[in-house]
């Protein structure tokens, strides 16, 4: 049993879904994604939580150039695989009440993107990683551009060019590392054992950092994000915010810091400061938003800022916090965008100022919304808390000033999220919201699953932390070993 099953099943599924009729494509897509989730569950049950790479596959691809289809799952990848395989069926289920034109193509693109994402999260070969990185971008571009909002053409090309630019520089970084290996290979473990000097590592650092900073996005590389999130169709936004931005974070953990530890040491403070600026900046802008989807988009920049700050401190607690927070953020943000999808489909607007009193007419919806808001603002006993706590604790070890500023994210987040909730849900109903129908069917299923996950992970996060613990410690030790060599 190797990871190839996990990677190729969505590709085959995407091709099969293309042959379904418009109405039935979504059932096929959901079935395949649930099968994929079941397979991931099987992997999880056989997974041994030590630092080793498991279920690995290593097929010669272009052996003359040192390129192998080399992928495997360790504790860090396992979390990302769970995130991807868990969210895709949920996201497909959120589209059940939409009538998309050319639905088979839509679902095929989502499944194809899932394959690309899984390649990114499991690749152990630089070339394969890059191919997966781009293979995830093409489908989301078409999803956003074909089924997006009014300004989609201009905004999606901006998004594409931004991310494509970043990834090309990353490609140069990967080729550069390849040329430095004595055996001329793209194997990640050989990259890890390179000993370049600090100056060259700085270049490698920037080549990778650009790609990841744009994807996450970190301030000031974020300008594509709010527009794209707003214009994309809901399912596209969920794929982007729920899973795709984690490519960048995962890349930092697996590809940026271990490949260029000395370059990282040199630029760590800048990266930390940019992350923290992003938190404050995005939070302040989120305050002023009237468009609910946009508000959530900015809140995502703030949350990602905290995750990246926690990683750049490079402690085992920080990485562990980042991993569990990635999972929680994925679940919460999908829930949050789904909430806004439901609202905008019923009311044909996303303007917060026009709403109010929905809680009175739709109690089930109100409860789900409240739980998701609480998870997002990281209330204790929700899934957001443990991650943010560990991340802040980690940043605290680096600098008290930074943690003071970064900690604002929790306060800010609570303020704008609860304010949004109050304005939308509480107060008196108006002509627009009085006829708001409560959730039912697929909506109820999705939101129930999300709410359960928020609470379960919030109360008992230990199993998830346990999956990645050994791998994280191992990674931290090997990088710290390189730091020590320099000193």
């Amino acid at each position, binding site marked *: 049993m190797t990871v190839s099953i996990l990677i190729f099943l969505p590709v085959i599924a995407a091709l099969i879904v293309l042959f379904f009729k418009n109405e039935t494509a979504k059932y096929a897509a959901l079935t395949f994604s649930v099968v994929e989730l079941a397979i991931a569950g099987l992997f999880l049950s056989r997974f041994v939580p030590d630092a080793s790479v498991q279920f690995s596959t290593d097929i010669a*691809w*272009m*052996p*003359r*150039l040192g390129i192998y289809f080399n992928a495997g799952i360790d504790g860090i990848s396992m979390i990302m695989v769970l995130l991807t395989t868990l969210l895709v069926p949920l996201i497909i289920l959120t589209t059940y009440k939409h009538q998309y034109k050319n639905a088979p193509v839509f679902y095929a693109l989502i499944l194809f993107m899932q394959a690309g994402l899984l390649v990114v999260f499991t690749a152990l070969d630089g*070339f394969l990683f*890059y*191919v997966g990185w*781009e*293979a995830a971008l*093409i489908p989301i571009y*078409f999803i956003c*551009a*074909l089924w997006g909002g009014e300004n*989609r*053409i201009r905004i999606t*090309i901006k998004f*594409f*060019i931004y991310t*494509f*630019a970043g990834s*090309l*520089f990353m*490609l*140069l970084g990967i*080729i*550069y590392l*390849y*040329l430095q290996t004595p055996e001329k290979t793209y194997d990640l473990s050989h990259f890890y054992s390179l000993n370049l000097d600090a100056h060259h590592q700085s270049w490698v650092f920037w080549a990778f950092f650009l790609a990841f900073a744009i994807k996450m996005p970190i301030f000031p590389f974020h300008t594509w994000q709010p527009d794209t999130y707003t214009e994309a169709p809901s399912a596209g936004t969920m794929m982007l915010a729920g899973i795709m931005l984690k490519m960048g974070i995962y890349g930092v953990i697996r590809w940026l810091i271990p490949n260029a530890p000395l370059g990282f040491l040199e630029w760590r403070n800048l990266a930390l400061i940019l992350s923290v600026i992003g938190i404050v900046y995005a939070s302040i802008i989120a305050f002023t938003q009237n468009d609910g989807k946009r508000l959530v988009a900015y809140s995502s920049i703030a949350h990602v800022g905290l995750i990246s700050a926690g990683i750049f401190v490079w402690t085992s607690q920080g990485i562990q916090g980042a991993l569990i927070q990635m999972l929680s953020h994925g679940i919460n943000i999908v829930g949050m965008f789904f909430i806004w999808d439901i609202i905008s489909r019923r009311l044909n607007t996303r303007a917060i100022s026009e709403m109010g009193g929905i809680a009175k007419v739709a109690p089930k919806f109100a409860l789900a919304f409240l739980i998701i808001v609480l998870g997002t603002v990281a209330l204790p006993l929700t899934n957001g808390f443990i991650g943010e706590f560990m991340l802040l604790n980690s940043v605290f070890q680096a600098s008290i000033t930074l943690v003071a500023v970064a900690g604002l994210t929790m306060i800010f987040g609570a303020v704008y999220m609860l304010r949004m909730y109050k304005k939308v849900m509480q107060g008196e109903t108006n002509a627009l919201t009085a006829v708001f129908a409560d959730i039912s069917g697929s909506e109820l299923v999705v939101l129930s699953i999300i709410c359960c996950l928020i609470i379960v992970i919030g109360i008992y996060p230990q199993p998830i932390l346990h999956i990645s613990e050994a791998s994280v410690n191992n990674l931290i030790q090997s990088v710290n070993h390189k730091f020590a060599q320099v000193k």
Partner: protein
Amino acid sequence: MNTLIVISVLPILVLYLGLYKVQKALLPVTIIGLLVAAGLAVAQWNNSAQPIYHGMMLFDNFAIAFSVITIVSTILILFLSAGYFERISNHIAEYYAIILFSLAGIIVMVSFYNLTMLFIGIEIMSVSLYILAGIKKNDFASNEASLKYFLMGAFSTGFLLFGITLIYGASGSFNLEAIRNWVIEHPHGIDPMFYTGILLIIVGLCFKVGAAPFHFWTPDVYDGSPTLITAYMSTVAKTAAFAAFLRLFAACFAPLSDFWVPVLLVITIITLFIGNITALYQQSFKRMLAFSSISHAGYLLFAIVALGSSSAGSVFVYATAYSIASIIAFGVLILVSHQSGSNSFESFNGLSKKNPFLALVLTIAMLSLAGIPLTAGFIGKFFMFSGALRQYQVLLVILAVINAIISIFYYFRVIIAMYFRDADREELMVPAYYKFVLGISALATIFIGIFPAFIANLL
């Protein structure tokens, strides 16, 4: 060698078929003949070739690989010609014959082992192309293209010939091996005449491949010529010119790379920027392809700037990817412009609604030209970047990356037009030949993108 003989005899046969008015047989005979020629070339593979005809030609693996790819591209383009030449005039046998003549020149160009053969090959190809550019006799643009191409081409041939004579004057030979030995034996005492010769040859060849600042003929000629001929010029003829360029520099001038690399480096950078930035401003898809072909010439020059053991393989992969994608682009353009009477981007609006197949293959072609992974174009760019980084041309690669980003704008413009803009249009009838060529080419693009080892290991 057998390949060359077959391709030289074939056009004469085709001319006779035309004389006896066997119009129906022209295309099948041509294609079967070309397949035989390609088969004969493949049979020679790995046969440790020796120079033939008193050292005039060498049919080594390099020559075989490039012969086969040019022949295959020609076959694909000829499939697109079904019904195309008939719309221009009744003398279609001549058109097939001239294309085949130019292909004979191309076979000489990729297998020369003596500078005179290089010159003869280029001339056979070019003279045929001058005629082909002007086959629409009543069309003003076609006439202009032909005349312009002829004047500029003749001019550049002069440079090339002058360069060759200076090389001969310094080294005393036209033979590649003799010239290389002469260079190696005189590491310090190389005549300035020899250096001048290299520069003049660079000028002459840059004209032929359409590299800036010697690119001024390209847009007008590509735009004015009949689209099918443009497809032929920008794929087959360009591939051949690059093969000749690389063969000459790898064989003779490699030891002097300190002298000519800076020159070519500047040419490469200018070519990339001029091609890309001008392509941004085009309103006509055909003209955009002309400028993008200039920028692709820039990427192809990478292999010569960063000359090394992998250069031949890089050029081969890149040229293959570029040729296949261009054939798709021109093929779809022929159909669309025949329907709408215009080459503009607007004429592609809403194509995906009525002709999803055409829109899909053109999208694959554009993604390949833009160098997106899982297409052949990415593998080509990847090889070029790797090769250049291996020679520490970091600045060049960074500039190339910027250019790759710029190119997204204009390649995606047509994708946006096809998928995201609406227009009232009739469904296009796609002839079976076109379906075959476009489908095969799109599949090949993806296949090479996923299994690059298939062609990357050849050279």
